[in-house]
């Protein structure tokens, strides 16, 4: 059975290897170039100097904001490409490897050939699922390692590693997403018996679940922290550290409160000394900024939790698919 599963899917692994090879060349070239620029522009040195300081004097230019912004602006195109490309890769891999797994056997009639050999559907399913899931882990895992390496300078320059969509491109979550898409594809293929239909269902299901998890679950993996810092000050949180600003005044933005604790407006407000009279009139002394956030050092914890969620979903879906195959199909 292992022979059969390998023979049927070895082409997919080969295609993935070729695609990975091409991508690796591109990422290696651009990644090295970015690292070089980072060093040459002084950004790396600046970041090293700042270290892990959580509050920085923005007036003095601490926090490397300008260098960071310049770097990010320079590689805007690449960032955009990454955003689009790397969002779809796990979905595509999972979908193209999962949807046809069972559906194609039904469509081509080869189910009549293979399930009349002396093998139970359960054994067929467990071997096929395991084979392609392993390929997915290997292929997308290698890809994730490479992409995470590639993103490092961009992360450092913009401090956005923890942000929605950026978080989803790198680390270990692409593997979780790909396994989930694969499992969803397999189940959709088992139920619909049609590859294209299964792919459509996979895309929709994938987007819905990913959205739901990222927007409603992710902020709560660990209890979020809160911080307050005065408006009339010249220190603010070090944005380049990579904290995830969840809210406080709206999605992704904090809020400004007066000294008595009434919310004045959403967003952030800083009035560095010497404080202008207009500022005092507007918010009053003692006003503070309020943010709910996840600290940057929790990035990998969150990656692990989200990966685990999607891997667990994938396992459940695969069990359901195997059950469907055995008991409900035909």
């Amino acid at each position, binding site marked *: 059975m292992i022979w059969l599963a390998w023979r*049927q899917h070895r082409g997919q692994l080969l295609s993935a290897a070729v695609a990975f090879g091409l991508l690796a060349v591109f990422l290696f070239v651009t990644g090295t170039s970015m690292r070089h620029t980072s060093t040459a522009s002084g950004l790396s040195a600046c970041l090293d100097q700042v270290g892990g300081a959580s509050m920085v004097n923005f007036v003095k230019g601490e926090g490397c904001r300008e260098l960071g912004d310049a770097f990010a602006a320079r590689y805007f195109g690449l960032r955009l490409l990454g955003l689009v490309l790397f969002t779809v890769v796990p979905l595509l891999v999972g979908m193209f490897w999962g949807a046809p797994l069972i559906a194609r056997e039904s469509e081509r009639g*080869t*189910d*009549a*050939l293979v399930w*009349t*050999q*002396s093998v139970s559907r359960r054994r067929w399913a467990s071997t096929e699922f395991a084979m392609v899931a392993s390929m997915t882990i290997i292929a997308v895992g290698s890809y994730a390692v490479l992409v995470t390496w590639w993103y490092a300078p961009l992360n450092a320059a913009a401090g956005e590693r923890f942000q929605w969509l950026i978080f989803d491109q790198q680390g270990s979550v692409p593997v979780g997403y790909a396994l989930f898409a694969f499992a969803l594809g397999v189940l959709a293929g088992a139920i619909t018996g049609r590859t294209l239909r299964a792919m459509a269902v996979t895309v929709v299901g994938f987007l819905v679940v990913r959205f739901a998890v990222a927007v409603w679950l992710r902020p709560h993996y660990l209890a979020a922290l809160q911080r307050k810092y005065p408006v009339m000050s010249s220190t603010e949180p070090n944005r380049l550290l990579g904290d995830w600003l969840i809210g406080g005044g709206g999605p992704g933005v904090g809020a400004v409160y007066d000294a008595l604790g009434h919310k004045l407006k959403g967003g952030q407000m800083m009035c560095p000394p010497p404080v202008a009279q207009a500022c005092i009139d507007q918010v009053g002394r003692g006003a503070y900024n309020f943010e709910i956030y996840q600290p940057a050092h929790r990035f990998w914890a969150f990656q692990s939790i989200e990966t685990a969620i999607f891997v667990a979903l994938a396992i459940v879906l695969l069990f359901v698919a195997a059950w469907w195959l055995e008991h409900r199909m035909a």
Partner: protein
Amino acid sequence: MTLALEAIGLGKRYGRTWGLRDCSLSIPPGHVAALVGPNGAGKTTLLKLAVGLLRPSAGAIRTFGETPRDDPSALARIGFVGQDTPLYADFTVAELLTMGEKLNPRWDQAGAKDRLGRLAIPLDRKTGRLSGGQRAQVALTLALAKQPELLVLDEPVASLDPLARKDFLAALMGSVAERGLTVILSSHLIADLEHRCDYLIVLSESRVQALGQVDELLSRHWILVGPRRDDERVAGVDVVVQVSHTDRQTTMLVRSDAAITDPSWTVHAVGLEELVLAYLAEPSAGMLPGPRPTEGQR
């Protein structure tokens, strides 16, 4: 003696419609059984149920006393060639043989290669590039290499040209002779089945209409030709299967276990094709007792 195939009240429903209903039959081992019936009568459904590709909605089906669905030991005793002889198009013939070897406990690799060699089918060619006749032979070889005790074939020769058809059936008969196989095959072409099958199952409107050994069926049915009359009762006749009249003459196909002594009738023997066609044309005529209100009243 374990029956090669046994169905008890077998039924299969697709949504609201029954593809097969109240099917009860038993085929002893060592026979070549023909399954005939019009399109949509349930032949493919019955055959797929027999090899575990479909789950029964009602009743049970057993091969050699075992249930074929998802049971590797039962499946090892059955060989199946489906309609359109599906094969993995991008596998070479040799790779299909390897697949069979890996997935089946009793596999005759040498015999399979030998058979394909005799048929001049190249082992290193992808099956997608073989002709229809070659693919049918490959599919049959794969089924036979399992060394099954029951071979189930669904319209195996439907898409073959006459020469390929003859080769296929000849090879099948040779294998039956060699291995003592039980075969059940469905076909539109009843003439193909004559001389090859010794057991007959007629399916009509998702039910079994007629069933039995060919010799016995042919010896129990007669064509009666005589002067025109409307009274269909004849001494010695159990059931009138089919009647046709011209202005002068009445022809009847009847079933009778006793001799027909009425001298006004000329009695002829019936051929297999004639018999099957008559039953298919008269769906309410049946060989079996059961939920068939017109049985015995004609």
